[in-house]
């Protein structure tokens, strides 16, 4: 039984159809990559899963529960966190306030303190800067903050949208190492990336998206050696 199941999803922006019947599934413990060019619909799919956008047709099922129509603010307490594209940290709040915002739905103070400790252990840099305004962090640090903020809700699945976007190569490697760690600690990961090579290198399986449709799917290791993928996405 899949943890997250997307079925025949169709999403529109006004009259324009952005997602044209997409189906895929994510099993517990997997790292799944959703790759494709700019405008293929990757972000749209993530936004529809967490309720920021409405699906016109199709369904999103999480833990056997249909969450297609569930409002966005009720998703996180079900165990699903979303690290949005462009990080979207709260720039005028401190690093610590941002992290606490991630635990907004959690009630238990000891648990929140424990989660904070875990996040700080994973991102020591955030602890050093906990009283700094998030807007003053570098791009890579903001990405770490966005991930840390999502982890504060103790999710069972985490959706990450272009975590490597706009980062220096060193930070890109660091971010991907962290994603591996998050996965190793038992959290399921759904990863959207333009950096297909990196994404495939840490994923179990992947889906390739082209203008709102899945055109290819399979084991990440196989896709890495697929000729058409190599040509279109890996620049080989």
């Amino acid at each position, binding site marked *: 039984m899949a943890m997250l199941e997307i079925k025949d999803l169709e999403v529109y922006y006004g009259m324009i159809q952005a997602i044209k019947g997409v189906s895929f599934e994510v099993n517990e413990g997997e790292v799944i990559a959703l790759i494709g060019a700019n405008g293929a619909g990757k972000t749209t799919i993530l936004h529809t899963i*967490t*309720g*920021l956008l409405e699906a016109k047709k199709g369904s999103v099922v999480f833990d056997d529960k249909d969450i297609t129509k569930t*409002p*966005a*603010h*009720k*998703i*996180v*307490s079900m165990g699903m*966190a*979303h690290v*949005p594209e*462009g990080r*979207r*940290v*709260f*720039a*005028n*709040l401190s690093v610590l*306030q941002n992290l*606490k*915002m*991630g635990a*907004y*739905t959690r009630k238990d103070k000891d648990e929140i303190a424990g989660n904070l400790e875990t996040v700080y252990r994973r991102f020591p840099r955030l602890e050093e800067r906990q009283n700094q305004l998030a*807007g003053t962090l570098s791009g890579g640090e903001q990405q770490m903050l966005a991930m840390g*903020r*999502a982890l504060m*809700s103790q999710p069972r699945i985490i959706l990450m949208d272009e975590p490597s976007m706009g980062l220096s190569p060193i930070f890109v490697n660091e971010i991907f190492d962290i994603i591996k760690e998050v996965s190793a600690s038992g959290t399921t990961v759904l990863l959207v990336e333009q950096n297909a090579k990196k994404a495939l290198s840490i994923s179990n399986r992947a889906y390739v998206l082209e203008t709102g449709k899945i055109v290819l799917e399979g084991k990440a290791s196989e896709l890495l050696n697929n000729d058409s993928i190599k040509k279109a996405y890996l620049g080989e």
Partner: protein
Amino acid sequence: MSFISYLINGISLGSVYAIIALGYTMVYGIAKMLNFAHGDVIMVGGFTIFFAVSMQGFPSIVGILLAVVLCTLLGITIEYIAYRPLRQAASSLAVLITAIGVSYFLQNMALLIFGANTKAFTSVVTVPAIKLAEGQIMISGETIVTIISCIVIMIGLTLFINKTKAGQAMLAVSEDKGAAQLMGINVNGTISLTFAIGSALAAIAGMLLCSAYPSLTPYTGSMPGIKAFVAAVFGGIGSIPGALIGGIVLGIIEILGKAYISSQMADAIVFLVLIVVLLVKPTGILGKKIKEKV
């Protein structure tokens, strides 16, 4: 000595503007809209107290509580019926025009119920006046209550925003509605709460305003509403300390202008100051710089 009296009166009037300006500035900061019906909620608060205390003979405190409850519900209802359906609208002008419509609707409802005649509002403040400097300066009970109310409200609101979860949710929503939702924050609920707080403060402002200037018409809230909006812009719209500073400065300018320049020109001076401030510092005194994100 008269200068000090004018100054105190200015601070008092400015405190009322500040309390009203809070409603504008919070709603703007969180819902990103200008609620031009806010001033008329003050008038509804005034009429509620007038109806309960002067017409029905209830004790003042009952009238005040009734006004706060009614205005809170009114604020939530206005947001729910008139503004929420337009939140996804393509143009932010749609909701602005709707707000002006709501403003006229409230004025005309009051006209229909209470008529156009000016009502003599009986002050609900029972605090005695105090005399200072051997009787040369007299501070009215209304002035004392107004200034104290403003201080209490400012401290209370600051604590609420910084110390409570709902307050933190407001900060998050004001920065990024989408990201706030991903944190599990109910954006619609947070906006409702903002309207509730703003409208409750408008009821208190109505009580203070009508007690200090005891005449009540359906248009009572309109001019103070506009001036409080000026105060909010002046202090930096979206900023709570900005509303306080803008309100007090505006109140002082208005009273001193009336006293030393011309009572007819006082309003013109107020708006002139706004124009100058906006020319020099377009974001207002404490306004945040608008950051362009790439």
